[in-house]
């Protein structure tokens, strides 16, 4: 079976700064792949190029055989990619359920309908998604009053509403308590298994990364250092050097 996503020779510079250079990796179906690296490694830039928020200078991003590099986020979403943001982006003046209904209305091409009552459209479908995400009892709360961790869940519900093939999660657990983190990642892993959805995520918390990713892409200074299973990455000398500094180099 061919890979779901193949990133090849991706590059992007901002002004004179080469944020990402020649990054390549691939992602299989139903795989959870993490991109890690220190601050400024180019994780977010890479990530946003896959999502379409940043247009790459060079390289291809092939999703299911089609190059999506440089396409608008809307088009990328339509090809089956959902995403969450580092700072969660939800519709604050709407209820949790309406947020999910919005994604469903868009999916069904109904956003320009002028007469039906929006609150009744796809309400059951949205409720079912919220049930799975564990937000059933928050359904009719305004997003504006929710706690941070719940907002992250709302985003996840919105992102998976159109049953994407690929889910992009930018720092999904940032700012959460350890128990919330574990719960959210366990939930994501369950969904990945049931829906045969692949997940590409960036994450700072190493416990989360090593517990939940099948493979890890390690980046530093805009380039890929290594790609491997958690065990391989754990043993990689260069990775240790990047994360732990120069002292280990002397030991080698």
């Amino acid at each position: 079976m061919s890979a779901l996503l193949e990133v090849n020779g991706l590059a992007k510079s901002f002004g004179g700064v080469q944020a990402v250079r020649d990054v390549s990796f691939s992602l299989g179906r139903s795989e959870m792949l993490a991109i890690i690296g220190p601050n400024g490694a180019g994780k977010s830039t890479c990530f946003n190029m896959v999502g379409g928020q940043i247009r790459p200078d060079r390289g291809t991003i092939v999703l299911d055989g089609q190059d999506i590099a440089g396409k608008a986020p809307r088009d990328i979403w339509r090809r089956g990619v959902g995403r969450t943001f580092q700072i969660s982006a939800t519709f604050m003046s709407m209820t949790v359920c309406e947020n999910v209904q919005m994604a469903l209305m868009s999916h069904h091409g109904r956003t320009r309908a002028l007469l039906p009552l929006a609150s009744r459209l796809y309400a059951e479908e949205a409720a079912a998604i919220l049930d799975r995400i564990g937000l059933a009892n928050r359904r009719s709360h305004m997003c504006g009053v929710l706690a941070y961790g719940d907002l992250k869940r709302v985003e996840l519900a919105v992102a998976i509403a159109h049953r994407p093939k690929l889910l992009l999660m930018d720092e999904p657990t940032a700012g959460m308590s350890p128990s919330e983190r574990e719960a959210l990642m366990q939930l994501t892993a369950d969904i990945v298994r049931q829906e045969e959805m692949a997940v590409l995520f960036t994450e700072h918390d190493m416990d989360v990364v090593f517990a939940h990713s099948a493979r890890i892409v390690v980046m530093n200074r805009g380039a890929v250092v290594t790609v491997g299973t958690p065990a391989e990455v754990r043993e990689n000398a260069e990775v240790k050097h990047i994360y732990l500094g120069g002292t280990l180099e002397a030991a080698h």
Partner: protein
Amino acid sequence: MDLSFFVNQALTGLASASSLFLVASGLTLIFGVSRIVNFAHGSMFMLGAYAAATVYGPIVSALGPAIGPWLAMLAAAVAVGLIGVVVEVLLLRRLYHAPHMLQILATFGIVLIVQDAVVLIWGYDQIVGPRIPGLRGAVTIFGQRFPQYELFMLFIGPVVFAGLWLLLHRTRWGTLVRAATRDREMADILGVDQAKLFTTVFFLGAALAGLAGGLQWPREPANIYLDTRVILEAFVVTVIGGLGSIGGALLASIIIGLLQAFGILLFPKSTLVLVFAVMAVVLMVRPWGLLGRPEPQSVSDLAETKTAPPAHRYAAHAFAVALAILLVLPLFAPDYVVKLATQAIIFALVAFSLNFIVATGGILSFGHAAFFGLGAYAAAIAVKSYGASTGLALLAAPVLAGLVALGVGWFIVRRAGIYLAMLTLAFAQILWSVAFQWVEFTGGDNGIVGVYMPGWASQTGAYYYLTLAFCGIAVALIWRIMFAPFGYTLRAGRDSALRCDAIGIDVRRHQVLAFALAGAAAGVAGGFFTFLKGGVDPSLLSMDISADALIMSLLGGVQTVVGPLVGGAAFTFLKAYIMPVTDQWRLVLGIVIIVLVLAFPRGIVGFINARSGWFGGAKDEAPVASTGEKLA
């Protein structure tokens, strides 16, 4: 066109550019640090001219003709600067974190107050300026005589620019101003005393406008129309140059000054159209003006807006009672009141359609009069020039207004926030000047008269019901649309364009359609207004109507669905009953606006709602604890 004439015309243009730069630099400076678009800046210019007219005589007779005139101009500038300080401290300081709409309306309130204050103090008659001793003559340039005072004006702009540059780049104060212009939050974090900084910036900005007004006085008599003309020109200059950029203001002043000097030769009737067209082209190519910096995409203005259907049974009762009163009104009310009620219905639709794009769509329009006026003119012209039936005329109104709104909308939604508001204003002003100047087609200043309904529909009561029916249908449709997927999508775009994009929604496309829809609805209102008044005139396209529509929304409650309807009706009746008893309607309105903005930003319905929750949605909810712990 020979060379000498060309040079002369160019010099005249540059002299005007100087004056324009003085005003625009103050405006852009104020915007830079406070992010407030100050409509009252033109009023400061006008006050400068009148202040100079007041102090000129006494100062010159006391100090003699050599230094007297210049000290008089400076005194006028300082006086206006101090007025700017008063405005900042008492009003604008309280609004730095308020939505753009409230800020704009508050400064517009100042405009109204100053207009009436000037009439009260100096009267309606213009005051002709003196010829400044020492600069009375003319010099000969390429065989053409050029007034010395114009030559002096020509140098003032560059001198002030140099002074400002030194002030901004060579003083600590200037560094703080530049820091605050670049990043207000960061300057705040770094401990810049914002209150003091803003006050001084307002002083300088207002003083520059006052100085410009004072210096203009010998060129142009002090009169009560200076403020509107100047503020529009200054807006155009700052938008072309880039909001917040002094260098941009200089560059754009020169462009506009020359454009006006030569444009008047090419298109004597339509310099204003030419100026706005240039602005539109510049913004197409450089969205943030020639030397402006991109504004960070701000969280939408009215992001806290919650629109929900009437939730409480009291709301349904109130609605039923209101409808019943509307239906039986002509049976007992005198003709005058029925006519007024017809007008109230029309303006309720104008305000309602405007609030649809402002509150639901997040598109702050300061030019809704354009579509109201287009509808009105379309109906009048259809009847008078093309002999159309009244039915066809009333149909032409929304069709034309809607189609034009579609085109304008396509252009303006590419911009956000305050740039968008200024583009809508610019467009309305273009239409206004077209209506004013294209006499053969629009009747110019006099407009078109004698457009009445035939037969039974000409009766006051019948026309009332007709208006109620059609405007009612328009309101009902928009109301329904607000709660349809389309309305939800608009709210979604307003709340988070980023999220919309990531779930496949093209926000702009929806905004354009909403703009067209609101334009068509305003067109319906315009069409009915024509037959109510029996004609049209350019004032229907004026900034005052656009502002009135926003004030109606504010009065009723921007964040509620019924608010604009209540506000539109209340405003119409208030105006009708207050105007006859006072000559100072503008003063009253200005004060009302400021009180609303400062004390009742939620408006009538919002105020009732916050206490009762009758109209649903807006009663504040308490934050909710996370579900995470339980699930973990």
